[in-house]
């Protein structure tokens, strides 16, 4: 019974997302793309935070890696966006591998501080290497050239066209993250979060699993960064700042850290609410601070978790075993 309603909601949401592309006004389309991109960032990030239990304050560095990777590739090599995205994600992945190698040797607060340090190192590099990165101006003039697939060329320079490309990447991310969560690897990650010692005694290297989660989430951050750079046609050094790292944490918490859809719902709420609040008052931070307080003090499951609780109180059969949530 519950399954049926889940499928219906998914179908409705999908229809809505497609409709936005066809009928939405300029601003709505732009806002939706920002939601989708933040969702990609947060979905990947939550694999590390919610699933594996590691709090990283440096993932913005990988977002920036994707953005600047694509930007530099686009400006100096070729404007083909697909290649640019691959370049950006590859750079983010490599950065995550190197930084992660050092960071996963520690846990809890030391891990958090290490990721903060590395993230800010990346930020200061981007800020200071003006000749390469454009410093505080960022890279400008990134072109949304058409995607050439050999047999066909897909134009994406118009916002509405680009929207469908972003939507495609979002759906791809959703599918991949969903699969990862339900895989053996995903279950082991949950084990690492719950009791890493026990995972060692099952014969698995906890450090390697943490590193893998780190790199995977860093790669998704990079993907989000490439899409963001293409959206704005420029890069921004503050995308590497630790305050940007706080965004996926915030939206995952608001949506529900332990749920799959939490980061998506949280992203939508964060961006939309912020726009709404900013219409009436400059003080959106105040309201978000209050919302955050409310969630931490009371609704730790976040929005999705809270809704799930509501549904659970109606008698529904539990889903079959054999899969991680």
């Amino acid at each position, binding site marked *: 019974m519950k399954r049926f309603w889940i499928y219906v909601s998914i179908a409705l949401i999908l229809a809505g997302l497609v409709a936005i592309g066809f009928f939405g006004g300029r601003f709505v389309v732009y806002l939706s793309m920002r939601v989708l991109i933040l969702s990609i960032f947060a979905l990947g990030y939550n694999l590390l935070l919610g699933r594996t239990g590691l*709090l990283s304050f440096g993932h913005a560095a990988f977002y920036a890696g994707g953005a600047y990777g694509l930007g530099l590739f686009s400006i100096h090599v070729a404007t083909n966006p697909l290649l640019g995205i691959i370049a950006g994600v590859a750079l983010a992945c490599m950065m995550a591998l190197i930084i992660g190698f050092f960071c996963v040797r520690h846990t809890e607060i030391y891990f*958090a501080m290490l990721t903060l340090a590395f993230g*800010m190192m990346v930020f200061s590099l981007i800020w200071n290497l003006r000749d390469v990165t454009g410093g505080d101006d960022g890279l400008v003039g990134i072109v949304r050239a058409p995607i050439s697939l050999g047999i066909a060329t897909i134009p994406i320079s118009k916002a509405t066209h680009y929207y469908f490309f972003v939507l495609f990447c979002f759906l791809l991310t959703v599918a991949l993250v969903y699969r990862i969560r339900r895989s053996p690897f995903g279950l082991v990650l949950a084990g690492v979060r719950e009791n890493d010692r026990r995972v060692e005694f099952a014969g698995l290297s906890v450090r390697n699993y943490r590193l893998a989660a780190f790199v995977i989430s860093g790669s998704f951050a990079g993907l989000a960064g490439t899409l963001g750079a293409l959206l704005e046609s420029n890069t921004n050094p503050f995308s590497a700042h*630790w305050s940007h790292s706080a965004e996926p*944490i915030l939206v995952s918490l608001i949506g529900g*850290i332990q749920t799959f859809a939490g980061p998506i719902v949280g992203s939508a709420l964060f961006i939309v609410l912020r726009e709404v609040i900013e219409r009436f008052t400059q003080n959106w931070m105040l309201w978000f601070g209050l919302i955050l*307080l409310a969630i*931490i003090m009371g609704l730790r499951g976040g929005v999705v978790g809270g809704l799930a609780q509501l549904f659970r109180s109606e008698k529904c059969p539990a889903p079959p075993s054999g899969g991680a949530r």
Partner: protein
Amino acid sequence: MLESIVHVCLAGLSTGMFIWLVASGLTLIFGVLGVLNFAHGSFYMLGAYFCYTLLSLMGDNFWLGLLLGPICVCVVGFAVERYFLRYVYHLALPYQLLLTFAFVLLFDDLVKMIWGAGSIGSPTVPGLSGSIPILGRHFPVYSLFIIGVGPLVAIGMWALLEKTWWGRIIRAASSDREMASAIGVRVPTLFTAVFMFGAWLGAMGGGLAVPYVGLLTPGMGESIIIEAFVVAVIGGLGSLKGAFLGALIIGLLSAFGTRFIPTFDMFLTFILMAAVLLWRPQGLFGEAA
């Protein structure tokens, strides 16, 4: 050349002592409560704004403002710990950090709402304004004052923790919460008191910053909190001695960096932080994990 180096050293010392003043509260709170308080930068900011307002209300009396401002922030600290933080000690680290982060958001906007989003000019303190010549070049008197206050605070805290009954209880509770509770220490009350004291220290830093930083802005908390984190980590999370020495190191490093290799001093600071975390996570002066 010599006066150049001496001046850079003095600048480094005053920066370092300034950071120490802010980091002392952060370190105390982490050492006793085990919580890394993001909102400490906000206490600093609130301290600065309260002091500024109070001193303007009281005929530009800096010392009165410095006395009363941090006390107001203390009250805020009480509310934060007693009604919010206390209930999340048992939760995982992300929730604690995010709770304090929520307060950062709140306080930032509250300050904007009350004092406006722009920056406020800061007055000079009679008697401590101007500069005096050292080795031929002029150096601000207020910075010398800061260089003096830093060690005073350090000695004061050392005396408090090592020589008083209160200090003994704090040390006991921070090393073994359950044991302290078992022998009759009312740990929750103690934690509130320590948090208030930490907030007071942060606000003191803010108050002393009023003539020092030139301009007060709502974002001033954010920039200082990262430096305080770096210092606390390098010195050893929870170690006051470490924070003092760490602040000295960072202050001097920053001053020499700004003078001789201007572009990369931020990078250097964070590389030092990462290096300490990787090779000696207990900090330069902390106890072995």
